[in-house]
């Protein structure tokens, strides 16, 4: 009886299934977010950065009319600040943001709006640090995303280079050329701009970067014969040599996972990017196809890194997997990039182009390969870093 029932059921299921037409569609049209921004006639002048920002982003399309939009943005004055209402037309939800009339609030607001819409990390509160010529000596500068509040944070009167910003945006470590010929690593606390010397040597020290938990700093030293990579513990001010080589080493950038450090070395004659595995201290060259590769930068997710490589005398951006089985060229053309930093939102990267007369900072949108100019300075800046 059971068997008959089962076979009958099977027959019924088979028959009903055989009546069906099943279609699978896997190909949606990919488009940018459609955003409508209501006109604003209030008093807050900083508001202009909001429409300007979203107009410049390739993953947003600003519509002239509020028809068939995904989101709608309306700004009103509110106690000297701004009250922004973001309406999601797809889910019929709205969110209200309030901001004070100052730059840092505006960047936080932009981040919040961007995160609410795209569900990915905002990048506008990113701090940018670099070294720039100041009356003949290089000093350290810090800037906001659009270069509206650039500040000089060192007054050493001696060359200060290679600033690196911690992941929590509270500290900057940089290299200072000492009067006696050596160099030192100095740590600036950004909450009160106090500064302390954490390591000094007669060798050339170059700050590399903070570990992902901000407890360690990686840096290199070079005495003319040998290079070393150090791991420096901020808690007890103790350093540990993790790699040494007869080649010249620079830019030890820690990856965010897996205990990997990327650095530049001329071990095989010309600068190449290497990966150092902290578990077994082995190194691996990742830029085998390029004769001149520098500036490694890691995204938050493990598995790949970006670097600059010279093609026809111009620095172009590449992304490669750790095992170098594959890579993609991200920039083409006549513009030569001098430095890159991968931002917290993995869609974007900062790229700088510097010359003696002018330096320009671009935001690179990786999927569309568009370069959005953030700001320029009529001076030569170098050692770009951001967080």
């Amino acid at each position: 009886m059971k068997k008959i029932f089962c076979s009958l059921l099977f027959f019924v299921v088979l028959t009903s299934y055989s009546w069906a037409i099943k279609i699978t569609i896997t190909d949606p049209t990919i488009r940018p977010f459609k955003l409508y921004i209501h006109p604003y006639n209030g008093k807050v002048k900083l508001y202009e950065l909001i429409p300007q920002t979203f107009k410049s982003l390739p993953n947003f399309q600003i519509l002239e009319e509020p028809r068939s939009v995904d989101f709608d943005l309306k700004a009103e004055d509110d106690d000297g600040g701004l009250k922004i209402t973001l309406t999601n037309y797809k889910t019929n939800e709205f969110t209200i943001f309030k901001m004070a009339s100052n730059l840092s609030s505006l960047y936080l607001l932009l981040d919040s709006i961007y995160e609410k819409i795209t569900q990915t990390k905002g990048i506008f509160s990113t701090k940018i640090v670099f070294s720039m010529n100041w009356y003949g000596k290089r000093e350290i500068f810090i800037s906001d995303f659009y270069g509206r509040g650039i500040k000089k944070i060192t007054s050493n009167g001696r060359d200060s280079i290679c600033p690196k910003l911690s992941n929590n945006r509270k500290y900057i470590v940089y290299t200072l050329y000492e009067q006696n010929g050596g160099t030192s690593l100095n740590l600036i606390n950004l909450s009160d701009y106090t500064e302390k010397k954490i390591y000094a040597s007669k060798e050339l020290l170059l700050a590399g970067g903070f570990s992902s938990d901000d407890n360690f700093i990686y840096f290199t030293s070079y005495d003319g014969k040998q290079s070393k990579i150090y791991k420096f513990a901020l808690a007890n001010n103790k350093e540990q040599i993790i790699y040494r080589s007869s080649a010249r080493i620079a830019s030890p950038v820690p990856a965010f996972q897996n205990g990997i450090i990327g650095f530049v070395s001329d071990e095989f004659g010309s600068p190449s990017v290497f990966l150092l595995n902290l578990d077994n201290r082995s190194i691996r060259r990742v830029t085998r196809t390029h004769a001149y590769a520098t500036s490694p930068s890691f995204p938050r997710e493990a598995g790949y890194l970006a670097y600059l490589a010279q093609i026809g005398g111009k620095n172009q951006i590449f992304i490669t997997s750790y095992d170098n089985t594959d890579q993609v060229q991200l920039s083409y053309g006549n513009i030569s990039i001098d430095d890159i930093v991968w931002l917290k939102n993995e869609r974007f990267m900062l790229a700088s182009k510097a010359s003696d007369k002018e330096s320009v900072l671009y935001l690179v949108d990786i999927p569309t390969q568009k370069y959005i100019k953030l700001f320029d300075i009529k001076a030569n800046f170098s050692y770009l870093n951001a967080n």
Partner: protein
Amino acid sequence: MLKKSFNYDIIYLVDTSIFISKQFEFVETILKKRKQKRFRNSFLLAFFFHLIAFIILSLSYKNTGSEVAVNIRETVIHFADYKPMNQPQVEPNIKESFKNSESGQSDIKNALLPEKPDLFKRSDNLAWRDTVKKKFIKEEKKILEHRVISPPKSTTSASSKQNDISPGLSRFINGLIWIVKTHWQIPEDYYNQLQGMSAEVEFYIDANGNIAYQITRSSRSKVFDFYFQEALTRTLSNFPYNNEFFDYLNKGGKIFIEFKL
């Protein structure tokens, strides 16, 4: 009288010949003048035409040139516009790791060798992209899958009659897929995040006799469900009536659409 008239005729003839010869002269001068005039007119016309064309072209050239220059200088630089290549920059399958500089001697040689583009290898077919393209790189357009489960031959005559998918119905379904696909739009950042999700809907005829749909399997993502429902709503709002499609549903035939990323 006759003589007189004869003379008259001679005079007349002479006069006529003079008249005709004069007329020829006249016509000739007229033609000559006309020719000169035509030449002058055509020359003037050509001159003015070229002058106007030159002014228009030079003005339009100047305008577009300045606009492009401003765009490039002030807002966005499209590196993608300069993209010249379809050449790979990498030799795959290099997985060697090393610990000392001795093993790296061959690497120096490799590094110094000029890059040879492999013409038989497409740069957009890189394995690295497969792992990260969903995050960063726009995917190549996927091929639309359309799978029709044909009825088994061993069913009863009545059902086999119902189960036969006529060419007209098949054409209509292909059109339907195309319309749904056109309306199914997802913002790029969501597309990257929603990878791997899928949902299924079934078409049916509602109480009012209209074609409607119901979700038979949700993706459990509000955003994903919203965008394919938007596509279906837009499709059904301008849905062309098709007898065969209607009959198929009316006779108990089922049509499922699976939306998959």
